[in-house]
């Protein structure tokens, strides 16, 4: 008997009598009066930033005014004039010097300040992790209250790779002192477009 069969046989023999799954849909889950306000408060608490904008061009100005090394900005948004489009064919290792990456997210989660991104938005999986500064664009209506609502949106879709990102990469491994910018981005800015 190989290990697969050995393990599965032992599991079958030792697992207890069937216990039904709970109905997690019946839980009264937290709701916020103003999802965007809650999202903003939480994201700022965990080191991120929220910037309300009225038109997409404001992103370019904001990025240029707040970050340096402007020849190393990339975006996956074709509507963003003034920031270079990401070459999807690029080897991820060449993204090492990217200063700012601007990508679209699918939605934000009010309870924890996270945004959901998949392969379709980032094009190259390493992009939102390897860049020095991450900027994400959401529409004002793209917010859900909580994680249960979030998974209703992702449903059973095939995304290949998807990630909730909540703020800049961080660590507190040295004496519990919080440091922003562990291995990934040192800042995270969420642009919220008023539509």
């Amino acid at each position, binding site marked *: 008997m190989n290990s697969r069969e050995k393990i599965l046989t032992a599991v079958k023999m030792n697992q*207890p009598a069937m216990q039904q799954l709970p109905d997690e849909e019946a839980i009264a889950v937290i709701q916020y009066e103003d999802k965007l306000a809650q999202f903003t408060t939480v994201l700022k608490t965990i080191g991120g930033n929220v910037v309300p904008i009225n038109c997409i061009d404001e992103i370019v100005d904001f990025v240029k005014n707040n970050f340096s090394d402007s020849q190393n900005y990339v975006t996956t948004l074709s509507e963003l004039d003034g920031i270079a489009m990401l070459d999807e064919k690029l080897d991820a290792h060449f993204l090492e010097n990217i200063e700012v990456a601007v990508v679209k997210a699918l939605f934000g989660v009010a309870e924890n300040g996270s945004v959901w991104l998949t392969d379709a938005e980032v094009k190259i999986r390493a992009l939102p992790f390897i860049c020095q500064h991450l900027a994400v664009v959401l529409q004002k209506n793209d917010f859900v209250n909580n994680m249960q609502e979030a998974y209703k949106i992702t449903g059973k879709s095939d995304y290949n790779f*998807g*990630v909730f990102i909540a703020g800049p990469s961080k660590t507190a491994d040295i004496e*519990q002192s919080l440091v922003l910018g562990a291995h*990934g981005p040192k800042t995270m800015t969420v642009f919220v477009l008023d539509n």
Partner: protein
Amino acid sequence: MSSINAKHPELAEAFNKDEARVDWHDETLWWIRQKRDKAAWTIPEWEVLRETASAIKNNVLSNMHEYLVEFEAKARANGIIVHWAADGKEHNEIIHAILQENKVSQIVKSKSMLTEECGLNEYLAKNEIDVVDTDLGERIVQLANEHPSHIVLPCIHWKKEEIGELFHQHLNTPKGNADPQFLTNAARIHLREKFLTRRIAITGVNFAVAETGEFVVCTNEGNADMGAHLADVHIACMGIEKIIPQRKHLGIFLRLLARSATGQPITTYSSHFQKPNAGQVMHIVLVDNGRTVQLGREDFRNSLKCIRCAACFNTCPVYRRSGGHSYHTAIAGPIGAILAPNLDMKKYADLPFASTLCGSCSNVCPVKIDIHNQLYKWRQEITEEGYSPKTKTVAMKVMAAILSKPAVFNFAGKAGRWVMKYLPFVVNNKLNPWYKQRDMPAPPKQSFTEWYKKNRK
């Protein structure tokens, strides 16, 4: 046998020599416990979430066979190569074979307590493979040739000045610089080079979804993603108990995990790996290593519900004051003390006794494992098997004799109070294990019986 059984007390005694450090350790972990409370209180349905998570995990234990088969099929359909390892040795061999196949001798690894449990680093080192742990805390203990002392905060027992000195020796940072921001940046530069040059990355797994064949990895630093996305080959290692039925259940577990662990609303990154990147190969290793045996132990199977948040560590009065290394096992703390005896009852016979049975661990557990009850049950099994600490066994027999005879009990109480009042040096000395690292209380003037007789009118 006594040397095996005396391990936790001896190791804790060594940790307790530096009183200022113990106080710092104790207070820091308690601060994290308080952060957990504050985070939990922001969610009105918190207790319902715990109850639901517990019920989902009960279902997982009762239907694990089906879920594992379903997960394997879905993961394969997604293009992931699935391996099964009966024990730590096989797990290590599978990984080594993948490295050999790819002619790779240098790898990066993000946090995986399973690989610690299996002794992967030591095994690969013997086979001349260079493993770089990329979680900052894990890298620190790795450079110091130590093991993590906490599953979420691996170097919680280190002071920043010591880390400064360690980095000075290994990463050439200036001597005497102990600034966390500066040291973290030095590690960032050091590890970026590893991420960019290593062709194989190993990660752990927080949750694996039977329904979709995907697995989720949670980090704050982004090290799992940096490793996995920049490598040609990604190997994810998971214990079979990490399986959950459906994707929507992640909604419950991700709401509980980081809040329970550090008081954060969610980890910075919750990465869902469903299919390998174009041009990349993805492996997943499903490991038993004693889990199926634990599944068959009615009294202890609940320990397999653990999601490794370490809330039970942070709240435990014994862990906070004895340090992770006193548990001499990969997973320390109260949960480690019920997992380890399953792997080797004799070797870890001391661990279930490293508890006050106060129940604080069970109160904070996000999946409602009855940790303190299991610790108590392990004590009974261990004592029956004859592995219990000798000094405790003798003391228990003396106590039993006294407690069974009221006259003897009354006399013993009087004698004890008299001794503590007039001859305190008889108890306040090194021969009394309770005096170590503790101050004996002032003796009460009268016993409860005496007080009751006087006051019951």
